Structure formats: C-alpha cells, structure tokens
C-alpha cells in the first residue's frame, strides 16, 4: 500500500489554528488552565499549540511534559520495555483545568496511563483531551477526545505517521502508512 497524505503543511496550520480557537472559546484567558504534552510524540504538537496560544493571548500559559511509561498497562507484555522520557510538570495541577495533548488517538491506552500519571501532581478540576488525529473505531477503552484535528478511518494494519518540522523533518506532513513500512 502506498503512503497516503492525510494533512499537509498548509492544512495542518489551518487545523492547528482552529484547535487553538476552540481552546480559547472554552478556556478564555487560560488563567486556570494548564497544557500537558504527552511524551514522546505529543510534545512537539503541544509546543506548537502552546506557542500559538501564547501569541494569540499575549500571555504566559503553564506548560508541562508528561511521560506515561511507568503507568502503562503493557509492562512485561512487550518484548522490549518502553523507553521512558522526561516528565516536567513545574506547577501543581490541583484544581486546575488540564488540556492533555497527543498526536494520535488510537486504542486510548496511553491516555488512560496519562490520566493515571497526572494524578501524582494533584487533582485537576477538569481534564480535556486534544489530538491531532483521531483514528475512528479503534478504541479499546471508553475514551474520547474533546478537540480533534482530523478524524481518520483506519485499519489496525495501518499506522499514522506524524512528521513535524520540530522533530527534524523537512515539512509538516501527516501520513497514513502500512504498519511495517
């Protein structure tokens, strides 16, 4: 199967702007809201959105990185243990609204782990999920995103490949590819 382009650079920019507008509609000035990028790949997207929001609102917005590795439910079930990444949450999320950001929503298991990992930093008043790509009908758990860049119909044999300039790629491009490609 050939690579299929889901979003190109221009479309991605439009999508990100729209997601930011939706966030501002719901969170107004982000006074009680924090953004958490999910490691490893959600972080780049979260940074893009964070920058855009700070520009639009002309103010600092709390931003953190959340690693879910130690909270995964597939430990000892994989051949190779997942590699941990940095968690950096330099604020308390007690009573705050949290926007979790990841690139692709697939089974929902990473989001479950993230909800678990987040609790170590306090009890948030509300948690929302933003994803760039929502793979429809693939969920293992009752988890849904509040903000979605694009819904995509996929097969389990396929994979969504997110290439961002921030990750060192030439252009921002989101692909649908076959799993072992």
């Amino acid at each position: 199967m050939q690579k299929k382009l889901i979003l190109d650079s221009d479309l991605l920019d439009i999508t990100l702007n729209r997601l930011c507008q939706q966030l501002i509609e719901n969170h107004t000035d982000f006074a009680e809201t924090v953004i958490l990028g999910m490691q490893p790949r959600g972080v780049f997207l979260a940074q893009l959105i964070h920058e855009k929001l700070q520009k639009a609102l002309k103010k600092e917005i709390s931003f953190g990185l959340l690693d879910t590795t130690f909270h995964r439910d597939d430990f000892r079930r994989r051949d190779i243990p997942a590699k941990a990444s940095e968690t950096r949450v330099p604020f308390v999320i007690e009573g705050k609204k949290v926007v979790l950001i990841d690139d692709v929503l697939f089974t929902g298991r990473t989001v479950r782990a993230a909800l678990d990992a987040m609790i170590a930093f306090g009890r948030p008043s509300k948690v929302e999920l933003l994803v760039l790509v929502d793979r429809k009908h693939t969920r293992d758990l009752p988890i849904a995103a509040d903000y979605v860049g694009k819904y995509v119909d996929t097969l389990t044999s396929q994979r969504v490949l997110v290439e961002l300039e921030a990750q060192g790629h030439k252009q921002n491009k989101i692909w649908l590819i076959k799993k072992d490609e």
Partner: protein
Amino acid sequence: MSKLTQRHLLGIKNITREDIELIFETADNFKEVINRPIKKVPSLRDVTIANVFFENSTRTRLSFELAQKRLSADVINFAASSSSVKKGETLLDTVNNILAMKVDMIVMRHASVGAPHFLAKHIKANIVNAGDGTHEHPTQALLDAFSIREKLGSVEGKKIAIIGDILHSRVALSNIFALKKLGAKVMVCGPPTLLPKFIGQLGVEIEFNVRKALEWCDVANVLRIQLERQQIKYFPSLREYSLYYGINKKLLDSLKKEIIVMHPGPINRGVELSSDAADSSHSIILDQVENGVAVRMAVLYLLAGAAA
C-alpha cells in the same frame, strides 16, 4: 534499544556500556519521580521481589526496598541471621523454597564470591547482586558513576581515585569496571598490603601516597577499612592508617583544586574520612544515597520488563 543485554545484574563485568547508559537514562526519569509529592508509580504492580540478605546491610537493603515500594512491587525480606539457614539449609534449597512461593526477582547479598552467579545457573527468577563477598557490588558502582555524571556532566575522561581498602572491597572492583567502561581514568590508592597484587592489569593506575592521588583526581571515592574481612593485620593500627591515608578538610583545602569526595558508607568517621571532610561541601555522600534509590528503581524496572 531499551533493553538490557542481560537477564540478571550479577556484576558490572558482564554488562555493556550501552546497558549502563540505558540504566542512567531510566534513572534520570525515576529521580524525577522520587522528588514528586507522590513518589510512587505502578510499573511493577504484579511483580514480587525477595530481598535475600545473608550478610548485614542497612543502606543497600533499605534502598532496594524503597526502590521496590516506589515501583509498587510486592516485597518480602529475608535475613539469614533469623532464618533456617542457621539450621543447615543450603543456599539453593533456601532460594528454591522462596521461589516456590511465586517470587519473580531475587535481590541477594552473600558473603561468598560468585553466590549470585551460581544461583543464576539454577533458577529462573531475575537476580540482582547486592554484593557478593569481596567480588562485586554492581548497584553501588552504578549509583557512584551516576552521581559523578550528575555532578560533573559526564564520566568520560574524568579522573577518579579509589582510596582505601581495595583488597577487600567489592565496591572498588565494580567501580573500576563501571568507570573504565564509561571512559574514565581510574587510580587506586592505599597501603601496599591493601592493594591486590595484579590490580594494575585492570588498567588502573596505582599510587601509595594519598596526597598525590588527591592532587591527580577530580573525584575521590573513599572506602572503609573492612576489619570484619581481615583475618590478619594489614597495617599496624587504625590510628596509623588514619595518619597516612585518612582524608580531612585541611588536606582537601590544601589542594590547588576543588575535588569531589564520595563514600559508599558506612563511614568510620575519623579513620578513612574525618567528620569535617565528610560533612564539607566537597562531599556528595548523601546525594549518592538519594541516587541509589533512583538507580535501583531503573535496574529493577529494566530487568522486570525484560522478563516477559
């Protein structure tokens, strides 16, 4: 790659530089975890670990137990002094009985060299060596190197002097292996009677004068005189040892540069290290203890993950 090359951590000798670096990267993340308000993660929730200690220990056993609890593992503790070992049970029988209770990992300290290696040949569970006689103490070496890396940015190219009773020290041997693998220059220093005969073959420099060793090094790892392992007298008296090899604040201040002082504990204050040196700004002894928990969490996490 995020998998160790070994199923057990028996010694530093049989792991690779990549293994050590993977343990350090994982330990960085666990160090962040243990500094949170809630210091626990559920990774090892369905893993049972037995801490089997045939020799006395405070720091290592507490550190391992804390690491296991921070990872949500189930922990059982076994001390030989209060067990059926006293009634004549063999090591293999004792451990097999523990394993029959469905234990996944064994952390063992034993007075005999090679005891964990022997077990590794006969049982299925993952084994972590927490010290075997005068041979190796891998997690101590890992936490020492991790502390140096944290303090100086890296271990590569740094000069580390290991000072004291090298002959009876498992910490010294594991440290030499770990530091050499990470590209450091290593020197051993002590009275000639307390340096093993062929230690130079490990690629370390040898120095008998403690002042020269301190002037050469960036880090001094000071070891305890292990009187309990010494059947004969290796030096005339502790007082004389302290006079020639003891490190104090005055000696440290007289050096032209700032060096870091480490000690694996327990310290015999006033023998190898004076109180004013142990409590000075040179000392990172308590950082070593903190890092010990993070490094042990990383080792247990990586070994448990590979078991599947």
